[in-house]
């Protein structure tokens, strides 16, 4: 097993520019969850110029709808990132530094990542129990009515990821 780089969230753009596709990283710090329904709301918020429930600048969004038991995440692996492709370029253009999900992205997302010096990090789809173990704290932030699709703030430690698209557009998908 090759070595891991350490990475902390919120992200420093200079640190992100050092990452290359295929690098394995352990992420520490704070990330926010959002999947289909929350993305629709964030996107509409940006379009309408309303205040978002989270500050996007420098942040990472994790595409996940976790399983919770007694208020704690017990399984929290990534969902298919491609479904967020409609919204992701707008989020990157408004300050988002990193998205975390599984599976390849469309060209518009590649372009937005390169344009903004961001990254796309891949978590391993199907490894939900492992990821939950790396979530040290979870707080509901917005849209509680969406259930598992609400926005949560996750404090993570040693969260294992692969750099899937780096800030230059290099990727692990053979494109």
């Amino acid at each position: 097993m090759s070595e891991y780089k350490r990475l902390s969230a919120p992200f420093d753009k200079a640190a992100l520019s050092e990452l290359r596709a295929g690098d394995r990283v352990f992420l520490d710090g704070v990330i926010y969850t959002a999947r289909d329904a929350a993305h629709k709301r964030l996107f509409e918020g940006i379009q309408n110029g309303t205040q978002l429930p989270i500050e996007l600048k420098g942040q990472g969004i994790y595409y996940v709808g976790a399983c919770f038991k007694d208020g704690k995440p017990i399984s929290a692996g990534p969902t298919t990132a491609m479904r967020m492709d409609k919204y992701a370029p707008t989020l990157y253009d408004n300050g988002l530094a990193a998205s975390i999900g599984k599976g390849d992205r469309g060209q518009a997302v590649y372009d937005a990542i390169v344009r903004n010096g961001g990254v796309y990090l891949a978590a391993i789809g199907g490894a939900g129990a492992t990821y939950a173990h790396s979530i040290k704290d979870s707080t509901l932030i917005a849209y509680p009515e969406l259930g598992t699709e609400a926005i949560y703030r996750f404090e993570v430690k040693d969260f294992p990821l692969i750099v899937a698209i780096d800030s230059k557009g290099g990727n692990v998908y053979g494109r």
Partner: protein
Amino acid sequence: MKNIAYQDIVNEVAGLTLACSRLTPSCTAAMMEACTKERNGNARFALEMLIKNAEVASEAHLPVCQDTGMAVVFVKLGQEVHIEGGLLVDAINAGVRRGYQENGYRASVLDPITRVNTRDNTPAVVHISLVAGDGLEITFMPKGFGSENMSRLYMLTPSEGMEGVKRCVIEAVKLAGSNPCPPIVVGVGIGGTAEKAMLTAKEQLLREVGAPSEDETLAALEKELLSSINELGIGAQGFSGDTTAFAVHIGKYPTHISALPVAVNIQCNAVRVSSVTL
């Protein structure tokens, strides 16, 4: 005539949902084999993590994957069975509701128009077949939608023949790419009507991973397609690699003189199935 109580069905189905916390033994075996022979470092990293994850999940009764699916339930109901105290489908839904809520499995089911979540992962999708005898066999498959979203139905013309069938299966896997959490199991249904083809494809996912079809022609086709699919090089998680699919499982049903339906239903790397006979 045998009587089976509504509440017994509820209890058994609630117990079946525990399948969300463990891979089937044949899935684990396929994953380990794929990991041993994988030459791509990133793909091997993914497979090692998935193997470890399955151990952690099973020991601590945690969901293997946070997508604990829509509950797809296959029932073989003996004609000599009488269910007392309520409706069969209600009992199944009550069992799913209890199992998901008690174990913290995700409520992923919502109204397709309003997108309002039912909050208890019901209703299940229930397929009932009437069979001889006085048994009641219930099989539970939590079907994740990263893979379900990659399903495809092709209504070929008969002139397209077996070459057309092969082309469709390969195309469906290629288009799915990294999305369905490969390595996958590819369920294929050939023949019937549109819905019969898709149901046949889904039923193939209940087989032990890699168990060949009893039909020799289909078994040979499974082998050939598996090899072509793995030559695509999509690999675990789409990171490129040697194993894109663990297996191809094909079923067939007679079809109309005008048609050659081909349905492809994909299973992600987390094969979770449980079964009970009352």
